[in-house]
């Protein structure tokens, strides 16, 4: 039997996205010029939805996109998280029993500091950043999301990878009793993902703990997920319980499920189509009648992050290594 999560936010309590993102303008106009990033973080804390724990001390990252982000409602109701079901609405609907606390992560493999660490030990060591990134799904839709997290590199360095560490592998929790999608074998559980060490250490790669200034909702991968903004969304593994440094390239769930359709790299690339659909354009997710006649938009090379990441792939055939 499924116990539905009671709706814990009224829509009236949700700050409209445009107000949330204008909060600094509001502060500035009220005379708080130069009050600093920390103040901006606390200001955010007073304007976000009730029912989710607000994250404090969130610093604003200067590289954020200027696009208007998708609404909290859109980001938390349209999800691919097969552990909770294969429909986009399933994760929000079926994740009420999921317990993201307490949470431990095993760190092992080619490291000088293997062990099982508490969520707080991993995350609390440094200041959280709010980063507004594009999110491009391999299914040719996209969103703009204000994530809160810390650069993965800073975490990995603390756990001292050895010189043999060429890749980083990740694993999602397996809890069929809390994750009804795991009771069927649509994919091989646990969900696994991986990056080269250079990709994992890239400053854009984010270990995410929140969205819109609050702790991650279960359907978005609570309490800890990966975001690699220049790759298709499925690389952003959710609810991580294990991080391993490996010498060999680790297996990844979608490339095992469909080797001809999903590769290890999965870099967003408008010129390399999925065998069954085009990746040249994308549908920017947007609810409401107003956007019904909106056209699709062009997909950008490396999802618009080419300037920062193209050098990672010099000399690599991106058609073969899709």
């Amino acid at each position: 039997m499924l116990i539905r999560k009671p709706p814990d936010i009224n829509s009236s309590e949700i700050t409209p996205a445009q107000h949330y993102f204008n909060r600094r303008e509001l502060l500035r106009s009220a005379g708080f010029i130069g009050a600093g990033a920390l103040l901006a973080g606390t200001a955010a804390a007073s304007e976000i939805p009730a029912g989710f724990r607000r994250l404090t001390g969130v610093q604003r990252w200067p590289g954020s996109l200027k696009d208007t982000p998708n609404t909290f409602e859109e980001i938390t109701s349209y999800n691919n998280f097969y552990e909770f079901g294969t429909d986009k609405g399933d994760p929000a609907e079926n994740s009420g029993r999921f317990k993201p606390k307490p949470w431990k992560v095993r760190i092992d493999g080619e490291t000088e500091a293997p062990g099982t660490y508490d969520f707080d030990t991993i995350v609390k060591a440094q200041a959280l950043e709010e980063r507004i990134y594009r999110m491009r799904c391999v299914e040719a839709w996209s969103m703009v999301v204000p994530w809160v997290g810390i650069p993965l590199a800073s975490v990995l360095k603390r756990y001292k990878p050895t010189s043999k560490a060429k890749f980083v592998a990740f694993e999602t929790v397996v809890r069929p009793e809390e994750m009804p999608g795991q009771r069927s074998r649509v994919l091989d559980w646990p969900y696994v993902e991986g990056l080269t060490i250079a990709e994992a250490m890239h400053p854009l790669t984010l270990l995410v703990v929140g969205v819109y200034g609050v702790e991650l909702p279960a359907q978005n991968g609570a309490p800890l997920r990966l975001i690699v903004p220049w790759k298709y969304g499925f690389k952003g593994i959710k609810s991580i319980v294990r991080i391993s440094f490996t010498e060999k390239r680790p297996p990844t769930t979608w490339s095992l499920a469909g080797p001809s359709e999903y590769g290890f790299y999965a870099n967003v690339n408008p010129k390399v189509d999925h065998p069954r659909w085009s990746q040249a354009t994308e549908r920017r997710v947007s609810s409401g009648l107003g956007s019904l006649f909106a056209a699709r938009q062009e997909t950008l090379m490396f999802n618009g992050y080419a300037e920062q990441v193209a050098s990672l792939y010099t000399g690599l055939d991106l058609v073969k290594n899709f």
Partner: protein
Amino acid sequence: MVSARQIRLVGKPLAHLACSLPLIVLILSLAEIGGLRTGPNPQLYIRDVLGTWGLRLLLLTLAMTPLRRLTGKPWPLRFRRLLGLWAFAYLALHFLTYFFLDRSLDIDVIVEDILKRPYITLGLAAFLLMVPLAATSTAGWQRRLGTRWLQLHRLIYPIAMLGCWHYYWLVKKDVREPLIYCGLLAILLMARVWWARGAGARN
């Protein structure tokens, strides 16, 4: 015994109402009436709802002949055209949604889709094959074409197969639902083969 009068005055209006319900619900969802929503990706939602109902009605159309066999009553055949035309209506809207809302009438992209994406090629082929069937569905055309009408309308078998195949091919990974449709179609077609091979000849 169901009389022709009952079919005309009660059965058909009820069938029309039932067939229009998914469309009414879709319109209410678009207008966000009664707590109904299309979700954050309305173009795809509309396209998928219309396609799914089109395929369901197509299979229901194909179920009428076996239903007549099983019940021994002629009335199911009286609903065949009505159901087939509703299936066509949903699939035409499904096609138009793809054309206008999803692809915003970008002909280059649509042509590329049709040439390069086999599931779209199949879907389009199925839809185009339905057009002559819908156009010749009237009693007048049935009379004019005689036995050729029957031959023409056997196209519904390849159309339904293409439709199921199209659905099976487009899902990302979870093929459980498309397989249900394929299975139902297989049963409906095999029943016909079985009856044609003699078991039915005695009926």
